[in-house]
């Protein structure tokens, strides 16, 4: 595979860009693989990449019904942070954060991971207690973070209204400096390119229509392009997990909800960090192109329509205006929605199933994008070894029957 660099770019420019190679192959599916990964989103591609790179499993297929990275990878607001409350989730997200920090170089693909910091605002006394609790936990888990008071928040984001005049004044915030944003599409493409280079077959426009299960063991998958065999199948299909689980006769504690976002028209840089507020419901950052990206709340009903209800957008907009009254004349360009798989405790499921060889990685709710590298690595280990990685073990599906839930509702970007 050609290495990307400035010099390569100049070389190609001199030959009118006529010699660029395909970023990935379009292979014909083989009859059998060691591992099949259903779902060619960020998590599935990352899983394939780490399987091949870290765990020596290269006879792998990723089967994608549409185009690579076309689900939530393409629709999220790209926030990356690891300041989760509970040890189990903090460990998983921090593992991810460490991988983010060298990802562009590792993949030789600039995923534009920009550690511009994330503020989680507190507007009530209980918000501030929760923030202190979380930051203290983060610190003792080795995760960066500090608690800022209202004055410090105002210094960091001078355009935000941190006065006492607002309905819910900003009392303070948690601040994770290493957090930030990344270029979502590039993450999928970078993983895809590197996985492809290591021999992984990326099979697009191919839908898994059924699972071949015999005597409680997975033998392969039925697809719109024929049967493909594998003794290990990992399912990473955010937004459709319940549908694929249904093919195995498995019910998941997951409901798929619309989650919406919108962008402004491109503006000259004015906001250089990420601001999130659970209390007034909204979060905002500015991309390198200049768009303000705003994330809204989850709609209350199940929906696979990649769109939600208008009042959700309206309420989020009111929150943004409350925090940033100067944006009143800025204009909203476009809105869209993704499908988030929510679990009862706002934590993912990384789990074996009653079917031997069939594993699920799902239920990331609003937090999937930031977990992409960590989720991929941990799930790759799980598939390679046939049992859950230590970081994945607490996220077993069994927890919903034993009661050992890991309630992260407070840490999710939006209240469920």
């Amino acid at each position, binding site marked *: 595979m050609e290495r990307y660099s400035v010099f390569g770019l100049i070389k190609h420019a001199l030959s009118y860009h006529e010699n660029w190679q395909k970023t990935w192959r379009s292979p014909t599916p083989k009859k059998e693989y060691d591992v099949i990964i259903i779902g060619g989103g960020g998590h599935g591609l990352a899983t394939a990449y780490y399987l091949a790179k870290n765990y020596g499993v290269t006879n792998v297929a990723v089967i994608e019904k549409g185009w690579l990275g076309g689900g939530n990878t393409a629709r999220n607001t790209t926030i990356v942070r690891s300041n989760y409350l509970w040890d189990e989730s903090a460990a998983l997200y921090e593992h991810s954060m460490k991988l983010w920090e060298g990802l562009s170089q590792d993949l030789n693909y600039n995923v534009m991971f920009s550690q511009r910091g994330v503020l989680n605002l507190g507007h009530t006394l209980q918000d501030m207690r929760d923030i202190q609790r979380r930051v203290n936990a983060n610190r003792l888990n080795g995760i960066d973070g500090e608690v800022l008071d209202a004055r410090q928040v105002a210094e960091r984001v001078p355009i935000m209204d941190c006065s006492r005049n607002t309905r819910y004044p900003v009392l303070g915030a948690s601040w994770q400096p290493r957090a930030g944003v990344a270029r979502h599409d590039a993450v999928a493409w970078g993983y895809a390119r590197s996985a492809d280079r290591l021999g992984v077959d990326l099979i697009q426009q191919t839908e898994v229509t059924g699972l071949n299960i015999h005597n409680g063991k997975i033998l392969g998958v039925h697809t719109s392009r024929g049967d493909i065999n594998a003794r290990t199948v990992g399912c990473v299909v955010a937004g*459709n997990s*319940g*549908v694929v689980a249904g093919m195995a006769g498995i*019910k*998941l*504690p*997951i*409901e*798929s909800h619309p989650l919406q976002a919108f962008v402004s028209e491109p503006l000259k840089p004015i906001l250089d960090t990420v601001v999130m507020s659970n209390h007034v419901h909204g979060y905002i950052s500015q991309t390198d192109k200049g768009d303000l990206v705003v994330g809204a709340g989850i709609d*209350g*009903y*199940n*929906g*696979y*329509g990649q769109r939600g*209800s*208008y*009042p959700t957008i309206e309420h989020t907009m009111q929150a943004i205006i409350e925090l940033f009254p100067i944006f009143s004349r800025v204009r909203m360009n476009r809105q869209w929605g993704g499908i988030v798989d929510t679990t*009862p405790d706002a934590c993912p499921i990384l789990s074996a199933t009653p079917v031997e060889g069939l594993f699920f990685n799902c239920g990331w709710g609003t937090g999937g994008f930031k977990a992409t590298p960590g989720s991929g690595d941990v799930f790759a280990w799980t598939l390679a070894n046939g049992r859950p990685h230590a970081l994945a073990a607490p996220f077993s599906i069994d927890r*919903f*029957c*034993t*009661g050992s839930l890991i309630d992260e509702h407070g840490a999710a970007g939006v209240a469920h």
Partner: protein
Amino acid sequence: MFYIHCPYCAEQRSEEEFHCMGQAHIQRPENPEAASDREWGEYLFFRDNPRGLHQEMWVHAAGCRKFFNVARNTVSYEIFETYRMGEQTSVTAGTTAHGREGQVEQVHKVRRVRA
């Protein structure tokens, strides 16, 4: 944004007046003590999550405060029917298998707003 026929108020109202409460027709085990941990966990947390026809419970929170059931397509978002607590739906997966194409009769009662 949904326009939901409240079976108690007997008219369509805007989605802002309602809350969705998740899957309809969840039965609490008759004798919880006799339920295994798995059965109890399934009652608490495991829900249908179909792509297509879904029966869900809504409450007319800002209106009559009654709970009721909605048969809705989770892809097209079409509402086929709303019906009261204790009633069963007349919509089956077969009638709605093709989403938009497979519309059922109830859907097509055209609203009338007269000047």
